[in-house]
């Protein structure tokens, strides 16, 4: 608890120097330090924007906080923002907008840049006059095209993922895309490794398996997971996160750096005098194809030639 009292104090002390030094940016990281995705966005932002403003980061730690805790943290951070009157606030990932921007900064005088809101920012009150940003999407339609090209008898898609709200949203959008491609889609959410293994076995009735994030799956064992997939899976597997590359044959990975970099560009544009509403909200556009040759080689699946030409070939390091 003591940190709750000290933070405002340190922050106020830092304001004395910040005021006179440079522009001030408050960066709200939805996660805690150490979470790879959030860290990479923040790191890229700090790298690109450090010349533009003095950056004060705040962390919501959404992965380990309850809804109530997140509300409290959001309120606390909002108070500090009102006190500090920063030149701009960067809200990274959904929780930042959900617990800080939407309740406290919507249409305020403080410009807001958001990045990493999954699929649709409208639930968090966007668009706003004082905000712009980059929505996190995944080219599900294009991936469906790749699936159709690779898996000749494609009728059913199974989605296996950790059980949390973001994964459920993701699976909904993928199911929707699958349905648009006349596929049957089924989602299996698991909370532990054993269930995950069972889900893999069960998913053998489908033609392709989308592995969502393993973040939040207890007792996850990487080597066992790989071995399990090698021995119990004959279906085409794919993923959207690059940290899932060891477990799938193909992944089209989003780049967290794209969000960090774009947040910095928007910050620069806004600090240069552009109004946020003048800048359209756009989706992320950089995706990197990976082929896990150690898994794919066990099957007869053949990815499209243009994918093979452009993809990064990956080999699982077996322990």
């Amino acid at each position, binding site marked *: 608890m003591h940190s709750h009292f000290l933070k405002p104090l340190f922050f106020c002390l830092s304001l004395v120097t910040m005021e006179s030094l440079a522009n001030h940016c408050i960066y709200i990281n939805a996660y805690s330090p150490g979470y790879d995705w959030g860290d990479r966005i923040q790191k890229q932002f700090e790298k690109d924007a450090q010349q533009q403003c003095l950056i004060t980061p705040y962390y919501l730690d959404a992965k380990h906080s309850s809804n109530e805790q997140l509300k409290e943290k959001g309120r606390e951070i909002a108070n500090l923002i009102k006190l500090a009157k920063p030149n701009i606030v960067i809200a990274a990932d959904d929780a930042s907008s959900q617990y800080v921007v939407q309740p406290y900064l919507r249409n305020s005088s403080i410009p807001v840049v958001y990045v990493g809101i999954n699929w649709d920012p409208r639930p968090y009150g966007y*668009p706003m006059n004082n905000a712009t940003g980059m929505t996190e999407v995944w080219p599900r339609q294009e991936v469906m095209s790749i699936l159709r090209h690779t898996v000749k008898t494609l009728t059913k898609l199974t989605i296996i993922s950790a059980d949390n709200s973001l994964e459920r949203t993701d699976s909904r959008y993928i199911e929707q895309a699958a349905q648009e491609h006349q596929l049957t889609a089924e989602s299996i959410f698991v909370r532990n490794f054993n269930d995950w293994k069972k889900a893999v076995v069960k998913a053998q009735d489908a033609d392709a398996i989308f592995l969502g994030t393993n973040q939040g799956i207890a007792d996850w064992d990487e080597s066992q997971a790989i071995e399990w997939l090698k021995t119990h899976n004959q279906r085409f597997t794919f993923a959207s996160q690059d940290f899932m590359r060891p477990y799938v044959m193909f992944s089209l990975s989003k780049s967290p750096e794209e969000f960090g970099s774009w947040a910095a*560009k928007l910050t620069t544009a806004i600090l240069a005098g*552009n109004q946020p509403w003048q*800048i359209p909200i756009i989706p992320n556009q950089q995706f990197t194809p990976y082929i896990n040759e150690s898994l794919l080689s066990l099957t007869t699946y053949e990815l*499209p030639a*243009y994918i093979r030409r452009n993809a990064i070939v990956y080999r699982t390091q077996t322990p």
Partner: protein
Amino acid sequence: MKKIPNKTHFPKWRFSIAALAIMTSAIALSIWLAQEEFNKNLRSQFISFVEKTNSEVASIISLHQGIAANIHTLNKIEGEFAGNLRSYVNEIGKNRQGVSFYILPKVTDKQLAAFEQKKRDEGYLNFQVLGSADNYQQQANVIHFPVSDVKNDRVMSLKHLGRDVYSYPQCFDAINNTIAENRISAAWSHSYVDNAHGISLFSPIYDTNAIEQIPAKERMQHVQLLISSELFLEELIDTQLKKSIDAKTNLTLRLQTQRNAKEWRTSELAQVADERPLTWLPSIELNQSIRIADKSMQLFLSSKPSLNQLNLVPGFFILLIAGIWVALIYSSLRHKALQRQQREEIEQVLTDERNQAKATLNSLGEGVITTDNDGRIRFMNPKASELFSIQWNAALELSFKALFPDELSDELEKIERSLSEAISQGTLVRLHNIRTKTQEGDTLLLDVTFSPLHKSDNLIHGATLVLEDVTHLEEMRQQIERMAKFDHLTGLYNRYEFEHQLKNAILLAHQSGQVHAFCYLDLDQFKVVNDTAGHIAGDQLLRQLAGNVFMLNLPDNAVLGRLGGDEFGLILYNTQLAEATEICHKLINDIRLFIFIWQGKRFQIGVSIGLVLIDQQKLSVEQCLIAADTACYLAKEKGRNRVEYASADNIEISQRHEELTWVERIPRAIENGHMTLFIQRMLPLKKGNRHAEVLVRMSDEKNELLLPSQFIPAAERYGIMEQIDRWVVKTALTNIAHLHRSGSNDTTIFSINLSGQSLASEKFMQFILQLLDEHASLMPFVCFEITETALMSNLSQAMQCMHQIKGKGAALALDDFGTGLSSFAYLRQMPIDYLKIDGAFVKNMHQDAINRAIVANIHQLSRVFNVQTVAEYVENKEIINELRMIGVDFAQGYGIHKPEPWLV
């Protein structure tokens, strides 16, 4: 460096203007070169800039074509996968400066709403297709080409999302063209975006590979999408400008398109132009065209350099060279000015010298004539004109010989020969006593010096003749010569000449066997005349006696001379003893009968004669004189007015007797203190020290004083003068020393007489030099007098002694000058300080013009030799006045101071 005087011929103003012009030109040239170099660099940079811009544009166009081709290929192979276009375009366009790439899908009216929704679902949250004009909604557009995807590097390009590019008129045409013709077309893009200086390129992507087979009008149906590239010209230019042109360059850049113009200045270009441009310099104006597809534009650049951008190194060298040039010109002009000045100075000096030479020549006492090699007169000075009584212009071109009378053929021959010798041999030739005649017929004697006349070519171009009128000098020489032979008072031979005659007679007797007689005559009672009537009377007596008695009564074969005082010598050639005795008796009788009357007083004198026969006996002149003198002395002792013959036997006896007499008497007198020093003071006629002559007197056994004339001749004759001189010098120096020791301020210079005999004695000289060393401090007060006769008897020895004495610091005086003037020519060599003019010339000079002239000439001569003069025998004021007028320095004589004992 020699300073140029204020008034010179150095063209200061002209040089200053020229130097200013040169340096200004050099500076201008330096600046021009520096700016040319700057311009050249800038031109090169500008061309490089334009080339890079063109290259960048070409690269963008190439990229644009590449994107189009690749998408077309992808569509052909992976026709169902359109989604990869977005990431592909982004990847290609990533970090590309100055351009944005867009995807413009063809959307029909019917598809529009679904398309917008689809884009929103993809994440373009507020995606909406927008037209260009207000009446967009009213237009019956059935086809749209909205910007559906934007390269995400450029935030502000996102503003174009949803723009229906096809709705813009200029893009409408360009799109129609590109679709119809299947090639890149371009449109000014400013009307649909804020990019005021953008150009949009369009390329179509069809749904078929066989588009070329489809008519142009139908190709719109087969278009799937357009690839559009928007070039941001300002950004492109800025980027390339920074890469190509020196950041410190001040410049103005203007982009002129068909639609409008944009101007950049240095600050806008973020150039570091922290130095002010040199506004007074002309600016460089450059322009180049850039063409993008079918659009062209002009770039105009204007710039002026700042000082630091000018490379002044070449200018420095130019200035250095100009400076050196100016310095060289200055040096040359200065050198010329100095040369001119020096030439003028030399000319001035030459003019002055010529004038001086002319004045000198005009004022010269000598005539100067220059002739050519043929002896023709080229120049003649006034004196020469006067000498020859001819105007110089009349003499011009005349032969030098023509100036001389024809009858003087000998002289003419000499002249011609000398002139020829001087010219041919280049030597100096002198002719003495060349005779010529004046217009009035008077004879002139000339000394002529012929000098070869060298000119600058070192060749002889004639001769210079210096003509000195020596007529007067010759007369004087002859007079002096006479004086050297003859006694001035009586006109008889003087002692010197008489001894010469005696020597000849002896020689003649030896050679011919003839017998001659020599008589020594000593007047009796002459002292009485002198003492009672004075020297003048005595002189008059002697003069009358010589003229009226001797000359009238002597035979023709007689030669008579005055040997000194009242003593005469007579040589009777070819005369035997009897005849000689007879002649002597007749003389005695004639003299006895001669009555001398002086101022009413009558004086009768007599004569004692000593006779010697000169035959083949080998008697010397001295022996003859001694013999005759002794005989004469015997005649006096035997009662005067008689003749005493000295035979050979008698001579020897007499000689012995006399020698014993004087040899005993003089040393005895010295030993017994019978020698006494007297002094006779001199009168300085000008400012100067006091002088006094030290005289010696001897008293006889009766304690009566003997005059020097009584014992000095005898002492000289018998060789005991050295003893007298030793005593006199020693006693005189002792006296002077005593005088100075006594504290007297007397600075009188005492003159001590030295005899010829003493001078000839080495022992005496050792004695006297030692004595002088002992009294070295007294030397400024000591002067030694040497008689001219003594000097001439042994000139070389005497000269050596004089130099030795002079070396000790004592002064020297030449005594009795004029009595033996053969020494005249040696005056130059003698280290003498005083010249004592013989009293014979002085004592009646106020009455005798010739004597006065002689005194004056001797004084003038002494001036030439820088010697002071002392006149002896000065007996009255008239003489003193005359001496003053002539300029003689000292006077000595009874009229000034009678000798008195030197009492110390």
